[in-house]
């Protein structure tokens, strides 16, 4: 009994240390952001990484004179796919099946986890190698598989850092950008059992290569995400840098791809637009080192069993809403978070979701069908930098405003609003401001009351109650003896 209690205390402690990326459990953004804002090391790591990517991206975008035309085409291609999503998904399904693949449909996260576990059980798999996929993090696949006796091996360098260091992703492309080299060294030395490991990125990368090589050659089942699904051909495309993706796509016997339904493109040739935009926006490269495309199974080359799991999990609820639908154009490049002044200060964990930054602020609450993460649409200054860099022209500020309105509508229906001083204050203001006599009376009372707080220097330095929220951080000029309205009335009287 004693041991159990100790274990529980430890578990609780770990939960506090580890950021919560489940929108149903995460604290509101301003609360979750506080510990990060105090963590100067983390903020330095995030700012450094973002500055490097931003500079590279800006240089490569500037050398493309047709950048705006590419953006315009990409947004229209994605809209075409989304407006006719049912037809394109069925076409994808038919073509993929004709090429030897099997398509499964998952209506929510639990459905997808169950399908994948069943497929793994059919393969008698107790180990699986994984290509980085944010969609699998969204459905919390790894903890589910581990709890069901399947060991998962992440193969992307950043994902290894997080998996071995028991950390959480803070960015959708460079998921461990909040971890610096000495922290990586510590994690690798401890978990891989390497003594005298240097903190040079070359040495750390080599350690990861050696750690995974045998896994690639021996584990017969792999799980991937998808960057694009091609309706015309039933093909799947994966964009990567390290070659871990190619390893997982060619060496195992069985490949399981988990893809959101919004990943479908009408035709193969649409990649000529998407591939030009994606790498430049994501990592500031003209093209990422490796992009792979495959169609069902190819005899003699790569996995001979191939499954695609098409995931809805709230996506269809975003479709058909005029403003919000553009959220689903996202190709997960992360340019918006790299450009965001809020993300730059807080990093990703404060967003309480695997999708942080501006895209997370609009995607997460919608995937949760507005039941959780309602603080996220407010985690923005609406400066518009995210919209400017978005390769598929998602007007994020516009969607943020729409979602803020929906959150406010929700709050209006809550009983607790009658105990909220801001809400009550605004209701009172509504009554007062719409009646001139009440307004003038309130002005007179307010001026009389404020006189008690006005110091000799003519400034108000501190107010009690709700007024303290204002004077905590700024002073207020004392009110003049007369309002403009009174002065004008006096003047009219005098000149008569």
């Amino acid at each position: 009994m004693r041991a159990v209690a100790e274990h529980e205390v430890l578990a609780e402690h770990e939960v506090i240390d580890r950021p919560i990326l489940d929108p149903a459990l995460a604290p509101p953004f301003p609360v979750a952001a506080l510990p990060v804002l105090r963590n100067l090391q983390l903020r330095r790591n995030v700012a450094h990484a973002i500055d490097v990517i931003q500079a590279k991206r800006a240089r490569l975008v500037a050398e493309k004179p047709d950048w705006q035309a590419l953006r315009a085409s990409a947004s229209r291609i994605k809209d075409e796919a989304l407006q006719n999503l049912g037809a394109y998904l069925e076409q994808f399904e038919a073509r993929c099946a004709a090429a030897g693949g099997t398509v499964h449909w998952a209506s929510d996260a639990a459905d997808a986890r169950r399908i994948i576990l069943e497929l793994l059980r059919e393969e008698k798999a107790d180990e699986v190698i994984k290509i980085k996929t944010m969609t699998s993090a969204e459905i919390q696949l790894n903890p589910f598989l581990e709890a069901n006796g399947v060991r998962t091996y992440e193969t992307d360098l950043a994902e290894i850092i997080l998996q071995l260091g028991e950390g959480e992703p803070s960015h959708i492309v460079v998921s461990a950008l909040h971890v610096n080299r000495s922290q990586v060294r510590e994690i690798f030395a401890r978990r891989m059992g390497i003594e005298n490991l240097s903190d040079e990125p070359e040495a750390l990368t080599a350690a990861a290569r050696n750690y995974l090589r045998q896994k690639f050659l021996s584990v017969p089942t792999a799980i991937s995400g998808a960057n694009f699904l091609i309706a015309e051909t039933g093909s799947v495309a994966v964009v990567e840098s390290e070659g871990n993706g190619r390893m997982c796509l060619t060496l195992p016997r069985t490949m399981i791809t988990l893809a959101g339904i919004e990943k479908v493109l009408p035709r193969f040739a649409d990649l000529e637009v998407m591939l030009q935009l994606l790498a430049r926006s994501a990592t500031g490269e003209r093209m990422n080192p490796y992009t792979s495309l495959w169609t069902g199974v190819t005899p003699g080359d790569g996995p001979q069993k191939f499954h695609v799991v098409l995931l809805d999990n709230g996506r269809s609820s975003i479709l058909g809403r005029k403003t919000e639908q553009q959220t689903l154009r996202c190709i997960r490049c992360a340019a918006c978070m790299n450009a965001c002044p809020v993300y730059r200060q807080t990093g990703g964990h404060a967003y309480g979701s695997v999708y942080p930054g501006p895209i997370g602020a609009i995607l997460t609450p919608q995937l949760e069908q507005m039941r959780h993460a309602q603080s996220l649409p407010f985690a923005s200054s609406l400066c518009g930098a995210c919209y400017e860099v978005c390769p598929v022209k998602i007007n994020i500020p516009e969607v943020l405003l729409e979602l803020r309105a929906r959150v406010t509508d929700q709050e209006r229906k809550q009983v607790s609003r009658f105990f909220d001083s801001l809400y009550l204050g605004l209701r009172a203001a509504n009554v007062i401001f719409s009646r001139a006599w009440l307004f003038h009376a309130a002005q007179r009372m307010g001026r009389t009351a404020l006189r008690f707080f006005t110091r000799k220097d003519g400034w108000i330095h501190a107010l009690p109650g709700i007024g303290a929220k204002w004077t905590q951080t700024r002073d207020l000029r004392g009110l003049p003896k007369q309002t403009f309205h009174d002065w004008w009335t006096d003047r009219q009287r005098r000149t008569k």
Partner: protein
Amino acid sequence: MNPVISSRQQVLGRIRAATGNPAATAGEAAQRYGRLPRDYQIRGKLPVRACQELFIGRLREYDAEVAECAPDELPATIAAQIEASGKRRFIAPSGVPNAWLVPAAWQITGFECDIDHGLTATEIEKAEGVMTACFCGVADSGTIVLHHSATEGRRVITLLPDWYLCVVRASQIVETLPEYFDRCKEPPALVTWISGPSATADIEMTRIKGVHGPRFLNVIVVRGTGT
């Protein structure tokens, strides 16, 4: 009720409820698709030689080794690259031209080359280097495109060996990515786009060559129109 079928119906039902069912004929759908704007650059603007130089320059920016030669110098150039690499155990795809493998051209002690007629991963893993042809080279991004035909090989052979030599004929080089897509008469079933050696920048955004794929990428550009 089969749960898989019901999820499918559920998801498609929700989608159709949201988007309406446009119920377009195939012809109407194609017309609608055809009206999408395509105002970006499709054709290249550079003269042939400048386009080749751009391709070579981009590859070198990725830290690839690039050599150029005339068609009849190709075997000797391959030999020189291999000699310089210090690697001796090679593999090549089944369709690789015999001229590349003429032993007389080599004179490299210890050189051996297995042809891939279904080698196992463990056998491929033992090779130090691999050489293949390609389908296309894209100058704008320094990209080599493999369609995995008999001369380009199965996907795994250009992945496991640490040293990769790719032969690109000048006629295969296009300037823009859309020009590559134009060259695909039919959409290919397998494609690998390779832009430089395997790399990562996951640790403090420092670009490191060679994580899991080949650390060394070597390209020979064959001038002229020889095939």
